[in-house]
């Protein structure tokens, strides 16, 4: 094996006396795609921020290309050849692709002006290398997020990075775009560039990574070649439990008691269409049942949820609630009808960052908590305390701003926001995305509990385990239509994949 490109050993770091990392290690070989996994709070981002010069370590050594180094700022890290692609894009959407590629490193003419000819040539080289086909003179923002992300990666690679750090790079990509990204990563690898790939999606890690380092409670608890591990091993390592234990309990906490027949139909949608990629959806949701919506990204699953919840105007079809036609023209009307919708986008459609855990949790419940416009804060506090306990929300106190909480805890607060109104139908769009394994199981268990109590759930999930173990029925969507319906018990992952990939004619309508 080659000498390692990077070797971090015995790294410790505390924040205000609380240790975030104790004895963390990370070794990366040249041309290796390396994943760092762990629950939220395990120290992944702290370790990466120490590597990229955002934080300074308390002790330990960082050996980069055979020499001990001390990177004191992101700029120093970048100059040493460590580039980071952030989750939030850090480029300038209004400017052209060329301007973005050369941003901060513009080639100059003899007069000190920007040499656009060289800039364009450089841009074309980068784009060609990754097989990205676009007009470099157009504004970057006019392209889909995926393309923008690839441009950001191309930009980093063009600066001779030896190590590229990608933090949840696929969170805004659809499957085809993910494939393009993986192609780029494989190409980088072939050229000897190493990649640190951080993702909550284990399937992706198994597909693209060579080696994985597992962190738990600020320590490196293991590092292994991915080929030698199973998914269960990985989860067990992150949780600190044995694989056997988890196998017995199931991969998710969504599995329920045997199917109960004949629950009343809470909502029945027929021929639902909007101008937003929803063509014709038929759906029936019964009390005490989970219906899963499966489909590739872009198949219209989120659009279906938006239509039902009154966010997009219907261009066709109708919604019956308890058998009566309902005019749901806004989320407010949907809430009044007993619907709740947990958006997949926690940050832009979920949290109110500066408000407290308490204020965030009761936002949808507020009308029922107030008399003559005055909020009954005593009752509010009692209710919030109850949810914090029941959902296991980890916060210093209920008046802590929600932005200070980890992603998993924010998600629990938002789930609490909707459970508090005691909805009859709960629409969950990727409820466990971007949430660590421990919180994920807790959230699944909470959902299951509500279903047992008679709530109807529409579950959109990209994780096959959640759909297969949790849903009574799985409606498969394609191009805005429901194309088939699979009924549990007995649905297998192969069946589901087959149904998702099948043409609209297969399987018959739902």
């Amino acid at each position, binding site marked *: 094996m080659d000498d390692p490109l990077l070797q971090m050993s015995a790294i410790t770091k505390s924040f205000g006396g609380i240790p975030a990392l104790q004895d963390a290690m990370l070794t990366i070989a040249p041309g290796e795609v390396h994943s760092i996994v762990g629950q939220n709070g395990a120290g992944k981002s702290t370790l990466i921020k120490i590597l990229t010069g955002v934080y300074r370590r308390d002790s330990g050594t960082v050996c980069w290309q055979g020499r001990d180094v001390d990177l004191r700022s992101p700029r120093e890290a970048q100059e040493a050849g460590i580039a980071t692609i952030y989750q939030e894009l850090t480029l300038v959407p209004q400017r052209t692709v060329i301007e973005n590629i050369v941003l901060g490193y513009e080639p100059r003419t003899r007069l000190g002006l920007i040499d656009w000819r060289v800039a364009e040539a450089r841009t074309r080289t980068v784009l060609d290398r990754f097989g990205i086909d676009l007009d470099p003179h157009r504004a970057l923002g006019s392209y889909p997020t995926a393309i923008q992300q690839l441009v950001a990666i191309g930009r980093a690679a063009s600066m001779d990075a030896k190590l590229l750090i990608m933090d949840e790079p696929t969170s805004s990509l659809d499957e085809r775009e993910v494939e393009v990204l993986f192609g780029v990563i494989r190409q980088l690898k072939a050229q000897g560039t190493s990649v640190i790939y951080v993702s909550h999606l284990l399937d992706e890690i198994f597909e693209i990574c060579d080696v994985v380092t597992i962190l738990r409670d600020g320590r490196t608890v293991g590092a292994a070649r991915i080929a030698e591990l199973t998914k269960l091993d990985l989860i067990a390592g992150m949780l600190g439990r044995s694989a056997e234990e988890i196998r017995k309990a199931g991969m998710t906490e969504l599995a329920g008691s045997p199917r109960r027949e004949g629950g009343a139909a809470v909502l029945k949608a027929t021929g639902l269409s909007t101008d937003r990629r929803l063509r014709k959806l038929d759906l029936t949701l019964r009390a005490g049942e989970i219906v899963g919506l499966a489909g590739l990204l872009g198949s219209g699953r989120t659009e279906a949820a938006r239509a039902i919840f009154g966010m997009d105007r219907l261009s066709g079809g109708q919604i019956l609630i308890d058998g009566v036609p309902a005019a749901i023209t806004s989320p*407010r009307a949907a809430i009044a009808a007993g619907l709740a919708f947990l958006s997949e986008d926690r940050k*832009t459609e979920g949290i109110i960052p*500066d408000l407290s855990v308490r204020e965030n949790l009761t936002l949808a419940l507020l009308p029922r908590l107030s008399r003559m416009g005055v909020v009954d804060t005593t009752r509010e506090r009692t209710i919030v305390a109850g949810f914090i306990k029941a959902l296991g929300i980890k916060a210093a106190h209920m008046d802590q701003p929600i932005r200070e909480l980890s992603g998993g805890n924010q998600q629990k607060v938002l789930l609490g926001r909707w459970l508090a109104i005691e909805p009859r139908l709960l629409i969950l769009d990727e409820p466990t995305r971007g949430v660590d394994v421990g919180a994920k199981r807790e959230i699944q268990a909470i959902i299951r509990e509500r279903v047992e109590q008679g709530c109807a759930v529409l579950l959109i999930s990209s994780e096959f385990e959640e759909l297969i173990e949790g849903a009574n029925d799985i409606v498969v969507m394609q191009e805005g239509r429901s194309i088939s319906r699979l009924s549990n018990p007995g649905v297998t992952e192969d069946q589901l994949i087959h149904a998702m990939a099948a043409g609209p004619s297969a399987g018959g309508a739902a």
Partner: protein
Amino acid sequence: MIRRLDPRLAGLLVALGVLIALNLAMTPNFLNMQTLAVNVSQVATIAIVALGMTLVIASGGIDLSVGSVMAVAGALAPIIFLSDWALANPGAGLAASIVVPLLVAALCGVFNGVLIAILGVQPIIATLIFFISGRGVAQVLTNGNLQTFTNPSFTWLGTGRVLSLPVQGWIALILTIGLALVVRRTIYGRYLLSVGGNERAAVLSGVPVARIKIATYVIAATLAGLAGLIVVAINSASDAARIGQLMELDAIAAAVVGGAALSGGRAPMVGTLLGAVFIQLMGYTLIANGVSDEMTLIVTAAIIAIAVWLQRGRRQ
């Protein structure tokens, strides 16, 4: 229950304390009822307008029209109580000369609010419309003349004393406390902060965003109208060309020094009052110690810049 004092507010209180201590040491006759009364009467109108401005800023908007709304309300009042009808019915006339201008001011707020919340015009553009046209309307109402009058009942609003302090100071104080409670305790306050904090999340949670925004511009305009009446009462004269001039900027300055974030989502009412008081006292201190008017403006601006910078630092 012990609520932690907001560090921003604490910083402002310390700065005010230092300023007062400096004045006690340096400024002759500082501890004097007259000094207090002068300062209170000058700061009250700014504070009243700034309270409304802070609510608008909390919603994620801005209101440039407050000065023009003051001018319209201020121009209307004398027209009403100098009318033949009001002279015949002094009681009803006085009431009408207060209520009608406030209602007209509220209507201006509805106009702003509808443009912004329903038609989706950007707040700075929407309120610019009335910023420009409102003063014109006020001047048309008064034919561009300075109206002077004597009406002791009305001028009490600007010159009266309660417990030896100017009545408008009490009004500002009561409004501050009242609105602080509204922000903290009512569903409107909670919705306001959620609209300014994350509008899309608020919509999804069933918050009636348009109604909340319109209500906020109505409150801001009504408070501006009240401030316009007070200014006219202080002067016993109404000058449509000058009432409330540059008031929007003073109000924004007070709100920002008080801890409002222009990105929305925060409505520190007590902070706004203290911010207005701080700017006022700063100017007074400099002038009372022989610093020229021109220098005072420059130093005040510098202090505001420092205050804002300090608050940014604390937010990280």
